[in-house]
């Protein structure tokens, strides 16, 4: 059994850890509010963009000549996966969940005999993937310096992706990120951005008589790269809100656990103190009796 001194030391150390986790929780909560706000504010832009593209692609007549970003290269051999994670740890299952989802997808791709290329955004993703998929990682991007998520960072990622697409380095591009639902739930998402998936058939054909200026295909070829940056930006916003939310609940749990541990240790400390006193008393009494 640990001595009284050891117990005392452990209690203080757990207490100071608790102080740290509590502070981290507060910081995460403050950041979360901001991140959540900007995630919500960013939604109209990406939704509108998506809508316009849906309307446009619904009206396109010859699929043959449609921009490659929309229709794809016609092949399905090389998959590029953009895995978006955080730059900092201590945020619960946030990164692990994305990686888990991404790894499932990687396995599927590799099992089908296709080529896999990975871009990691955020250092934590790279750390977790480098051991198994190190050879597949073609680029790692990190925005450790930028304080807030901004559009220019997203644009940088988007441009990298498009450049690689134009060099015919891949056929399909999928991004992985966490969608922010609420503080306790973040849903890992995979979203295919190239070729664009027009899954919903919401395009109301009655109103397809758009006037285009300049030509339809020119608009599309201009708009699609922008849409990719926008989708990535949206993913980054969702991700940062999720990260803070995840960190907040993780730190809340840690604080609670530390509290429980302090209670347990305190009881143990008091017990052994009591035991020591009793022992001493017995010694004195039996010493007096033997006289």
């Amino acid at each position, binding site marked *: 059994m640990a001595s009284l001194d050891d117990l005392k030391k452990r209690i203080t150390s757990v207490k100071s850890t608790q102080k740290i986790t509590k502070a981290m929780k507060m910081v995460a909560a403050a950041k979360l509010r901001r991140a959540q706000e900007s995630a919500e*504010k960013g939604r109209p832009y990406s939704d509108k963009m998506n809508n316009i593209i849906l309307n446009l692609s619904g009206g396109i007549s010859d699929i043959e000549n449609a921009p490659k970003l929309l229709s794809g290269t016609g092949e399905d051999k090389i998959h590029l996966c953009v895995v978006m994670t955080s730059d900092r740890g201590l945020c619960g299952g946030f990164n692990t969940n994305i990686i888990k989802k991404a790894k499932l997808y990687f396995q599927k791709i590799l099992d089908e005999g296709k080529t896999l290329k990975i871009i990691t955004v955020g250092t934590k993703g790279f750390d977790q993937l480098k051991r198994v998929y190190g050879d597949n990682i073609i680029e790692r991007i990190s925005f450790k310096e930028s304080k807030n998520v901004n559009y220019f960072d997203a644009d940088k990622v988007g441009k990298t992706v498009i450049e690689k697409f134009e060099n015919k380095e891949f056929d399909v591009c999928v991004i992985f990120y966490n969608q922010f639902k609420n503080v306790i739930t973040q849903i890992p998402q995979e979203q295919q951005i190239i070729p664009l998936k027009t899954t919903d058939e919401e395009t109301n054909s009655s109103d397809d008589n758009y*006037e285009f*200026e*300049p030509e339809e295909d020119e608009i599309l070829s201009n708009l699609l790269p*922008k849409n990719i940056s926008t989708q990535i930006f949206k993913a980054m916003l969702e991700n940062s809100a999720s990260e803070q939310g995840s960190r907040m609940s993780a730190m809340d749990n840690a604080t609670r656990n530390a509290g429980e541990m302090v209670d347990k240790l305190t009881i143990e400390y008091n017990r052994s103190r009591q035991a020591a006193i009793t022992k001493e008393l017995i010694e004195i009494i039996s010493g007096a009796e033997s006289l």
Partner: protein
Amino acid sequence: MSEEYSLEIVNPEKSFLLKDDVTEVVVPAYEGEIGILKDHISIISFLKPGIIKVFSKSGEDSYYVNDGIIEFKNNNLSILTSLILNLKDIDKGKISEIQKSAEEELGNSEISDQEKYLLDQKIEVLKSIN
């Protein structure tokens, strides 16, 4: 009959402006300025750097945009842009900053004619503001 329609301007960071009482919007479209009144035909177009003028019951507003896409449909005008500044409370320093980076880019010989044209436009507009 009222001649107002609704306008929404969004940029990636937030919804910039929402208005229900605009009567006319003049936008710097790719092939020249377009004025949009109520019941205009559905249109999708690109913007080049320039000034958006918004006329409404409550007055007239002007904004500088870097680029953008407009969509007009069912008397709803949406403008999506990456950078928008209100000319009323504009920061002169910021304008010269944008202008400077545009001029620097123009000095880069690798750009296409189209980009060159856009940059020229941009610088011209910025000069007129300053």
